[in-house]
């Protein structure tokens, strides 16, 4: 979509909470559109803080964030969202009192809210069609008329994804999208994410290594607020520093039987 400017770039990004540097000099670079990029790392590595900085929920202590070449470092979250950065939250949340359809319709009308005070919301056909299209794309037809507050956790996560897509983002930040899902829901959601990553950039924070190594085009490994390694799943799996950070020293204790067969580095996902 953009010319030469990278989709996302952070330069010497630092975020301190008091004395603790949650993000400590991160130079993150997402060059191409249409890739699925996973960010992994033990708890406390700064992954979610990185998302919070990029989406404007936190102000960095220092450093710069560029989205498609534009400096968004000091922008408000809504402003960043309007420019095409969408994100989901680790703790899933939607507009509970509204139906699934209304949730998505409301999200497609974010740009109209401060401009139209008298025309009925249902009369903006472009946004209605858009909402219907998203419903279809994510396969939410059956629950479209259900009140969001009554949905199962998996469906809420799917709806959150739908809401994120309503703003037509070019960068999608997903914070543990499949956490807490049943295997069937996981499969469906992962397939959708892979599908989406073909037309927009996706950055995914995920603890499920099986999924990460299966679907990611690139992986960034973070630890204690810094980028430890970056590369393809193959490169990451072979990286001794990553093994060190994830597994520590005593490998035998940390190995999870279920993961051994399928996960290249047999990571301890609970960090």
């Amino acid at each position: 979509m953009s010319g030469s400017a990278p989709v996302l770039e952070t330069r010497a990004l630092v975020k301190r909470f008091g004395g603790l540097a949650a993000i400590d000099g991160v130079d993150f670079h997402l060059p191409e559109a249409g890739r699925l990029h996973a960010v992994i790392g033990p708890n406390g590595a700064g992954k979610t803080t990185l998302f919070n900085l990029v989406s404007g929920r936190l102000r960095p202590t220092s450093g710069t964030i560029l989205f498609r070449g534009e400096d968004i470092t000091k922008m408000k979250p809504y402003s960043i969202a309007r420019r095409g950065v969408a994100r989901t939250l680790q703790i899933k949340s939607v507009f509970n009192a509204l139906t699934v359809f209304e949730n998505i319709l409301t999200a497609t009308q974010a740009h109209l809210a401060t401009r139209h005070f008298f025309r009925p919301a249902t009369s903006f056909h472009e946004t209605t069609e858009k909402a219907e299209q998203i419903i279809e794309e994510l396969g939410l037809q059956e629950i479209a008329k259900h009140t969001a507050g009554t949905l199962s956790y998996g469906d809420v996560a799917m709806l959150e994804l739908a809401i994120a897509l309503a703003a037509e983002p070019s960068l999608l930040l997903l914070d543990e999208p499949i956490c807490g899902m049943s295997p069937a829901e996981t499969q469906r959601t992962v397939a959708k994410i892979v599908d989406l990553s073909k037309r927009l950039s996706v950055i995914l924070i995920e603890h499920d290594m099986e999924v990460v190594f299966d679907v990611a085009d690139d992986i960034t490994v973070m630890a204690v607020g810094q980028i430890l390694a970056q590369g393809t799943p193959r490169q990451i799996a072979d990286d001794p520093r990553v093994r060190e950070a994830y597994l520590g020293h005593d490998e035998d204790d940390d190995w999870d039987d279920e993961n051994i067969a399928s996960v290249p580095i047999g990571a301890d996902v609970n960090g």
Partner: protein
Amino acid sequence: MMSINMQKIVTLGLGGLIFLFFAAAPVLLPLVTNPFWVSIAAEILIWSLLAASVNLLLGYTGLLSFGQALYFGVGMYGVAIGVSKFGLGFWPAFGLGIFAGTTMAAITGTLAVRLTWHYFAIITVVFSLIFYFIALTLKSLTGGDDGLAFSLPPMMTWGDWQIGLTDPNVQYYFVFFVVAACFLLMGVVLRSPFGRALVAIRENADRAELVGFNVYLLRLTSFIFAGFLAGTAGALFALFGRYASASYMFYHVSGEAVVWAIVGGAGTLLGPIIGTGLLILIREELSLYWDHYLLLVGAIVILTVRFAPRGIAGFVIDLVAKLPAEHRRKSENRPKKREAAE
């Protein structure tokens, strides 16, 4: 979606009934009871607008304000000062009252809506206290404790003939049409993308901001609109009572409006008028016989919050909307079950 449509239909029906009742009140009430109830009906209409102002914030934006009386009081003073100090006519004074209430909301709102939850509630109380004491101090302008009385200018003069609120019917229908217009306006605005955005913010402000809603600006706009409603109510009440007083700015008045809105149904368009009507009725009737009638009001509030979170209006709407829906579901399910059995 079906039940949502039913809710709309029931709301329209309920609104129609309320509209007809108040439209016919000056004719109907004197037939069955003391004519002074007509002026109680007018008072209910005016105060319901203050409750609507609370409702817009609490029921649709998710902000609990205990300071809406400030904008009501400023609306009153706008009219009273306009008439008695600036010598304004009826309409300019009415306009000044509304404008003053709205402007006060715009000024205090820029600070207030930066906060949420109890911090927001506290700052709204603080603002109303500050201006309450300022109004008490500025005796020459506001009349202090005594308030500021004025003589009513006519609405229209035509040679010798003039029309004004001194005619009780004109007064009642003036109040009726202004209040009806405000409720209609609120209904229209709540259906717009702006109104839907407010509900999104009420439901989940974090998510709304991430989706691209300018939460601060939307909350502020809602606050100003609420100030407009409260200011209009105050301007009406000043014309109705021919005076303004700082005592109406006190947070006690705000608290009453919050109770009316909650009992009637926060988050429903018609809740405020139902709640205001019921509780003013209780006040007028019961307070004659029982000094501690507020105990009953307290019990009603507790029962509403516990058993009907969307108030009386929400309870009625859900009840009526559910009946046909249940019926439909049963008739829809029957053939399906048969299919499954086969």
